[in-house]
C-alpha cells in the first residue's frame, strides 16, 4: 500500500534536486559584482512612477461579478450533460429555459453597458 507512493516520492526528490542544482552551481561558480543598477528589482523597462499598491478602478468588479455568476451557473450543466439523453425532451427544453434566463441577464448587462471597456 505505502509502496505505491514510492514513484511519487522519487518524483518529488528528483524535482527538488533538479530545481536546486542549477541555483547551487551558479552560486558557487558565478562571479559576483553587485552595483545599484543590478540590484534594482525591475531591470527591463522604465522605473515605475508613483506607488504600485494603488486601488484598482472599481469598474473591474462588475466584470468579476458577471463572470462569477455565469461561471457558477455552468455547474448545473455538468450533471445535466451526463444524463440528459435519459431524461427526454423536457429536460432539454428545461435547460434551454435555464440558459435563456441567463441570456436575459446577459442581454441586460450588455445593454446597460456593464461590459463596455472604459
Amino acid at each position, binding site marked *: 500500500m505505502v509502496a505505491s507512493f514510492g514513484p511519487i516520492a522519487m518524483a518529488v526528490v528528483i524535482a527538488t534536486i533538479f530545481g536546486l542544482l542549477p541555483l547551487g552551481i551558479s552560486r558557487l561558480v558565478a562571479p559576483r559584482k553587485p552595483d545599484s543598477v543590478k540590484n534594482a528589482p525591475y531591470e527591463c523597462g522604465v522605473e515605475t512612477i508613483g506607488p504600485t499598491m494603488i486601488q484598482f478602478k472599481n469598474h473591474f468588479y462588475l466584470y468579476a461579478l458577471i463572470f462569477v455568476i455565469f461561471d457558477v451557473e455552468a455547474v448545473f450543466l455538468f450533471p445535466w450533460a451526463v444524463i440528459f439523453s435519459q*431524461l427526454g425532451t*423536457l429536460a432539454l427544453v428545461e435547460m434551454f429555459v435555464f440558459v435563456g*434566463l441567463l441570456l*436575459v441577464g446577459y*442581454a*441586460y448587462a450588455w*445593454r446597460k453597458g456593464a461590459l463596455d471597456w472604459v
Partner: protein
Amino acid sequence: MNFNLVLLMPEIALTSAAGLAILVDAFSPRGLSRRFLLWIAGGGIAISAALALRLLGTNTSAFNGAIAVDDYAVFFKLLFLAATLLVLLAADTFMEETRHRAEFVGLLLLATTGLMLLAAAMDLITLYISIEISSLSIAFLSAWDKRGLRSTEAGLKYFLLSAMSSAVLLYGMALLYGLTGHTRLDLIATQIGQGPNAALFLALAMLLAGFGFKVSAVPFQMWTPDVYEGAPLPITAFLSVASKAAGFAATVRVLQIALPTSQTDWTVLVAALAAATMTVGNIVALVQTNMKRMLAYSSIAQAGYVLVGVAAASQLGVSAVMFYLLAYTATNLAAFIACIAIFNLTDSEQIGDLRGLRWRSPWLAFALAVSLLSLAGLPPFVGFFAKLYVFWAAADRGLLWLVLVGVVNSAVSLYYYAQVIHDMYITGIGGGEPGVGDPVTTLGPRRPSPGLSTALTLAVIGVLVFGVLSGFFFGIGDVAARTVAR
C-alpha cells in the same frame, strides 16, 4: 419523472413579466415614457392570479413532490399577488422619482415569485432557494436609493443579517437531512422518530432562528426597525406584509408537515418566542417618536400574535394564522400606504407632525385611524376578529397563559396606536383650525397620486370588508388549512 409545468404557471407568468419588463426597458429608446412598465407588471400579476385561481382544489404536488400545489399555497399566492399590486400602485410617485424603474418593477416581481414559491415549498432545497430569491431581491430594493445614507445602510444591514440567518437555517436543514436522509418534508416526517433527540432539537432551533429572522420574531428582530426606517416606504410596506406572511407560511408548513408534534414538542418553544415577541415589540413601540420605527415595532408585536396561532399547532391554529395574515396584510398595507401619502404631504416622519391632520386631509387621517384601530384589535375592524381566532386556537390547546400575555399586550398596544389618533384628531381641537405655526399647515400641497389613492382605498376597503365578513374569510382559510394541518 413528474415535471408538471402547468402547476407552476403562476410563478412562470410572474417571472416572465419580470424578465419582459427588464428587457423591454433595456431595448427601448431613452426618451420613451416608461408607463408601459406598470402595465407589464399589472398584467403579469393579473395573469398569475388567474392561473393560481385555476389551481384551487388541485391539491397535488409538482417536480417529484418538491413543490406543493394545495389550497394553502394558492391562498398565500393570491395574498402576495394582491399585496404586490397594492405596493406597485402605491409606489407610483416613488417610481416617478427613481431612475431605474424597470429594475424596480422586475425585482419586486421576482421577490414576489420567491415568496410564492416559499409558501409552496415542500422540499428543503426549494425552501432555501425561494428564501434566497426573495431575500436578495429585497436587499437590493432596500438599498434602492444608492445615494442615500439611510437606504444603503438599510440594504447592508438587511443583506448581512439575512445571509447570516439563512446560513444558520441551512445548517439546521443539513442536520435534519442527516437525521432523516431526506429533504422532502413529508418523507422527513416518516423518518423523524428514528433520530436522536439532541440533534433534532438543535436542528429545530436553527430552523426557527432562520424563520424567526424572516418574520422578525424576538430575538431575531434587530434588523427590523433600522431596515423599515431606511428602506423606501413602498419596500418597507412590502417587507412588512408579504415577506413576513411568506415566512409564516413556510414556518407553519415545515412545522406541521415535517415535524409532527408527537415526535418533537416545539409548542413550548414557539409559545416562548410568541410571548417574547409580543412583549418586546409592544413595549419598545411605546417610546418611539418616528412613525416608521413605531410601525416597525408594531409589526414585530403583530408577528408575536401570529406566533400564538402557530404555537397552537392544530388545524384551528393554522386557519387562525391564515386569517390573521390576511387581516394583517390588508391592515398594515393600509397603514403604510396612508403613511406614504402623509409623508409625501408633510415631508416628516415624526409622529408629532401628524398633529391636526384631520383638518389638512380628513381622508388620510381616517384611513390611518382605521388601520391603527384594526392593528390594535378593536371590534368592528378585522384586527379584532383575527386576534380572537388566534387566541381561541391557543386556548383550545390549553395555552391559557399565552392568551393572557396576548390580551395584556393588546391592551398595552392600544396606548401607542391611540396616541397617534389623538394627535391627528384631538390636538388643537380647542382652537378649532390649527394655526399657521403648526407643522401640517406649513407644508407643500402635494396631492396623493391616483395610484396611491386607489391603493389606499382598496386597502381600507379590505380592512372593512374582511372585518364584516370575517366568518366567511375565516371559513376559506379553514378549508385551505386542511391541506397542511395534521
